[in-house]
């Protein structure tokens, strides 16, 4: 670690004995680093005692249902509330006009745009919020919504980003002053000239268009809230499906004008987030405004179709990749063009200085001397979004681009796709490595990971089988696909990364109680990733306490330290670091108390990790445990220390963490039906030191399932009028246990040198890494016939069409022997 990245409290950042060695501490009995501790969360969930938003019931609570537009693009001519207000039990009907009185008809987005909370003038996407009915129960609220009469004047819609940029395209945003096009911004990265030069000098160049389709994170619990304006104390409490409760409190306060200490956001148990629950949605604002106006609690819980059709989507990048290389397959340059569809508002939830997220990681795991990307973003008549669904801020798209291009290049050169990767890998000695687009990768050992993967799948054997099948004109084609990706997670250093101006640090507060157990409060927010267990493990490791004696709390902005929340796999890199540093501050003070207890100088005290006790140097039989120290801190505090034993840390990370992986997918493609069967999926992930391997494995399984779903099933589609044609679970295809194959997981350990416990994030790696491995495998199965690419989702009809064009489909006449002289009997 270079000296300029050292922080003032750097003494806590690295453990004095070189950091925890997860292997060495297996089974020390306290549930520290590296152990497969069973989850503390499970007890309430397996008994039905979780507390999700829709479980919350308050006295006098009303229900909100939103009236949504049937049109994708239309002027609202009039709204008649009368019939709705006549429904018994309907308390209020709100429109933009009502919200405008409180300046809440629109809200700012994180990308410097403005979004309608309720449509003021013009609907910009189908199912957009037009009015809201508040009633005494959820059924009556829907009855009322059915009775709100809205007159529309429809307009031509545009749902294709390419068409949106044509000169005569319908203008989505006539509310922006002087706006005359659907173009939002152009963003560039890298060195254009150097890249052009690389292409001029190259032996070989390849080019490939690819579309990363629009998909949706679709957590099984949809978005919702219970807003409760306390008129007596003038305080707004909102229980909210939130991945970032503190950031939401700040934004709520800024938008509503209610001071921050009078706004309490509580994120209770969240039924999955997957990036869907980072943004602020109109429903939350409407419920809060309704509660403020009416003075009673208001619950809003959206239905599945509303979730898929109006909350943040993911991806929707049209990309063209170009690679310049030597004839030996050494990459000399990469040039990328992207057209991004952002929907009707630019509301992507990402750090403010990164309009294309961290897409500039697109040079991947390879030592690429020159790279350049130009990206344009467009408005369309579709719901806003872009950043969600385990994307790590557009890393999914970046990894897809580079991993597909490496495969394309390998085909052009007729070179083995594993070999071409090995030739271009950033060598492990080169870390920290500065990429052509300006990231500094922290650590990596890519070749070791690839070697392990090749061994595990018996790569040579697979290639032999592939050839054997081709020779035998087998009905099923075998394909082997790779993805050797590098992630970038843990946003991030305050100087580069902020959300609405707030630097992207995170925090932990550890309070050790007199009897030696502890309460830990963190600024990140779990949605199932197991923080209540794994953050307790970090503290157990650092303080020598039993994991059972540590309670981890999160999600309540009144009690927890300010943090930026959980998304982009940032909890371990940032919140985990804060937790370890706070624990080290506790230990530092504990050491001083131990010296007092043992009546020796502090310099003579050593911390013995294995026993969780302070010992007198050279006299290991003289010691005090952390529990004894905790008691002493309240009952016999030394003169030079405050009573009590607690510490806080707000951690501003010096860099991101760069976990990596080597994934291999083996598919069989049925030449008759176009069906793709994933025969094997091997996933090696290296996220540095592993806090809880069981939890990591679960993250990887879930992430791979989402990557497989992306590659094989999922797509939000529209017709030309802007109607959502895959907008609920009938046609937006989530995989079941039948579609997801058995998955093999593996790991290597390459710690992050700048992280206090050497840990990197991992939660999104599997979804980032797996789609290109799957597409590469399917293409690989057909590569001998010249197939270069197939767009996702690779449904049977799509794959069959590609097979057919390549002349690989089976001839029915050959398969079924008909006797031409005989016709079926007419009976």
């Amino acid at each position, binding site marked *: 670690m270079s000296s300029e990245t050292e922080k003032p409290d750097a003494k806590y950042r690295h453990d004095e004995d070189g950091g925890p060695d997860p292997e060495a501490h297996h089974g020390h009995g306290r549930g520290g680093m590296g152990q497969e501790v069973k989850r503390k*969360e*499970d007890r309430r969930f*397996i*008994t039905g005692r979780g507390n999700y938003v*829709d*479980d919350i019931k308050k006295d006098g609570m009303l229900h909100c249902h939103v009236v949504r537009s049937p049109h994708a693009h239309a002027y609202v001519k009039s709204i008649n509330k009368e019939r709705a207000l006549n429904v018994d039990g309907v308390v209020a009907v709100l429109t933009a006009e009502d919200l405008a009185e409180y300046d809440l008809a629109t809200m700012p987005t994180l990308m410097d745009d403005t979004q309608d909370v309720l449509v003021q003038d013009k609907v910009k996407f189908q199912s957009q919020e037009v009015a809201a009915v508040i009633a005494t129960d959820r059924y009556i609220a829907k009855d009322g919504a059915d009775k709100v009469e809205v007159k529309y004047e429809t307009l031509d819609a545009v749902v294709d980003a390419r068409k949106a940029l044509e000169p005569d395209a319908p203008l989505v945003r006539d509310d922006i002053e002087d706006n005359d096009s659907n173009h939002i911004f152009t963003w560039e990265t890298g060195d254009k000239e150097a890249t052009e030069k690389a292409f001029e000098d190259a032996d070989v160049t390849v080019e490939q268009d690819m579309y990363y389709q629009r998909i949706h994170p679709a957590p099984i*619990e949809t978005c919702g809230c219970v807003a409760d304006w306390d008129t007596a104390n003038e305080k707004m409490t909102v229980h909210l499906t939130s991945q970032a409760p503190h950031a939401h409190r700040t934004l709520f306060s800024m938008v509503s004008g209610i001071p921050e200490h009078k706004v309490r956001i509580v994120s209770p148990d969240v039924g*999955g987030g997957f990036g869907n629950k980072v943004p602020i949605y109109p429903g939350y604002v409407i419920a809060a405004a309704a509660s403020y106006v009416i003075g009673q609690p208001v619950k809003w819980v959206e239905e599945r179709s509303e979730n898929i059709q109006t909350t943040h989507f993911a991806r929707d990048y049209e990309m063209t990749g170009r690679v310049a290389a030597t004839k030996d397959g050494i990459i000399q340059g990469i040039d990328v063009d992207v057209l991004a569809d952002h929907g009707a508002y630019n509301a992507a939830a990402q750090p403010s200085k990164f309009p294309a997220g961290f897409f500039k990681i697109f040079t991947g795991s390879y030592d690429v001397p020159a790279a350049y990307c130009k990206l344009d973003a467009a408005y369309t008549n579709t719901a806003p979004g872009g950043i969600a669904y385990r994307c790590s801020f557009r890393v999914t798209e970046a990894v897809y681009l580079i991993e597909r291009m490496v495969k394309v290049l390998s085909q052009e050169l007729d070179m083995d796709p594993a070999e071409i990767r090995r030739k271009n890998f950033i060598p492990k000695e080169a870390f920290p490595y500065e990429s052509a687009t300006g990231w500094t990768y922290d650590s990596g050992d890519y070749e070791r990971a690839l070697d392990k993967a090749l061994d595990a799948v018996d790569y040579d054997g697979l290639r032999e089988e592939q050839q054997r099948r081709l020779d035998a004109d087998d009905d099923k084609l075998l394909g082997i696909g790779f993805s050797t990706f590098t992630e970038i997670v843990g946003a991030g250093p305050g100087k580069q990364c902020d959300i609405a101006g707030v630097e992207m640090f995170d925090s932990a507060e550890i309070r050790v109680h007199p009897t030696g157990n502890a309460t830990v409060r963190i600024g990140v927010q779990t949605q199932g990733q197991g923080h209540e267990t794994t953050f307790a493990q970090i503290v157990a490791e650092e303080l020598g306490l039993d994991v059972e004696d540590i309670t981890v709390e999160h999600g309540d902005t009144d009690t927890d330290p300010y943090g930026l929340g959980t998304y982009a796999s940032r909890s371990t890199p940032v919140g985990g670091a804060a937790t370890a540093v706070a624990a080290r501050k506790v230990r530092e003070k504990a050491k001083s108390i131990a010296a007092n207890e043992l009546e020796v100088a502090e310099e003579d005290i050593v911390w013995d990790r294995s026993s969780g006790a302070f010992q007198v140097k050279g006299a290991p039989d003289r010691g005090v445990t952390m529990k004894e120290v905790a008691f002493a801190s309240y009952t016999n505090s030394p003169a030079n220390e405050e009573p009590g034993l607690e510490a806080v840390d707000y951690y501003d990370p010096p860099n991101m963490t760069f976990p990596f992986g080597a994934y291999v997918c083996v598919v069989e493609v049925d030449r008759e039906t176009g069906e793709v069967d994933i025969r094997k999926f091997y996933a090696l992930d290296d996220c540095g030191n592993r806090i809880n391997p069981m939890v990591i494995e679960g993250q990887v*399984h879930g992430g791979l399932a989402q990557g497989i779903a992306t590659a094989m099933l999922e797509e939000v589609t529209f017709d030309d009028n802007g109607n959502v044609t895959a907008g609920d679970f009938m046609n937006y295809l*989530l995989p079941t246990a039948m579609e997801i194959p058995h998955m093999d997981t593996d790991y290597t350990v390459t710690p992050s040198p700048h992280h206090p416990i050497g840990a990197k994030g991992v939660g999104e790696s599997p979804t980032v890494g797996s789609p290109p491995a799957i597409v590469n495998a399917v293409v690989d199965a057909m590569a001998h016939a010249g197939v270069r690419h197939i767009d996702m989702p690779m449904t049977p009809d799509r794959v069959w069409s590609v097979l057919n064009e390549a002349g690989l489909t089976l001839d029915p006449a050959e398969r079924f022997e008909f006797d031409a002289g005989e016709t079926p009997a007419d009976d």
Partner: protein
Amino acid sequence: MTHDITLTVNGTEHELSVEPRTLLIHALRDEMGYTGPNVGCESSMCGACTVHLDGDAVKSCTLLAVQVDGAEVTTVEGLADDGEFHPIQQGFQEEHGLQCGYCTPGMMMTSLQLLEENPDPSEAEIREALEGNLCRCTGYQNIVRAVENAAETMRSQKQELAADGGGD
């Protein structure tokens, strides 16, 4: 217009007055406070609302409360016996078969019916039995393990019971 109905939930009798259109899931959650079963969709696909109705696993979002007047319902809250976890609950915790926990109540109720009908299911049988229950977190693999784990426990419990009872 409401109807008076009686439902026995987890052994407790409830008398309630519901509109004919009230879905069983809302009667359970909003009227009687059984918030374990969840709602994840509106097209009867996800199975988060699965409960047992007279011993059969059903999606309670697709039944009217009046339709099941007089029935016996078991929800996830009724799985544990006197504070002792059911082998299915143990299996899910042991094998890390849940993350956010939202699909878990429905997933466990479907698994229970499978194991009552087929005490020793193969992996393929487990996956097929669970195809009406969507999970977004686990990728299903550990759920399969959880069901296998529970099956084993339930089989050995049965054997023990048989041995204790002198082989009856």
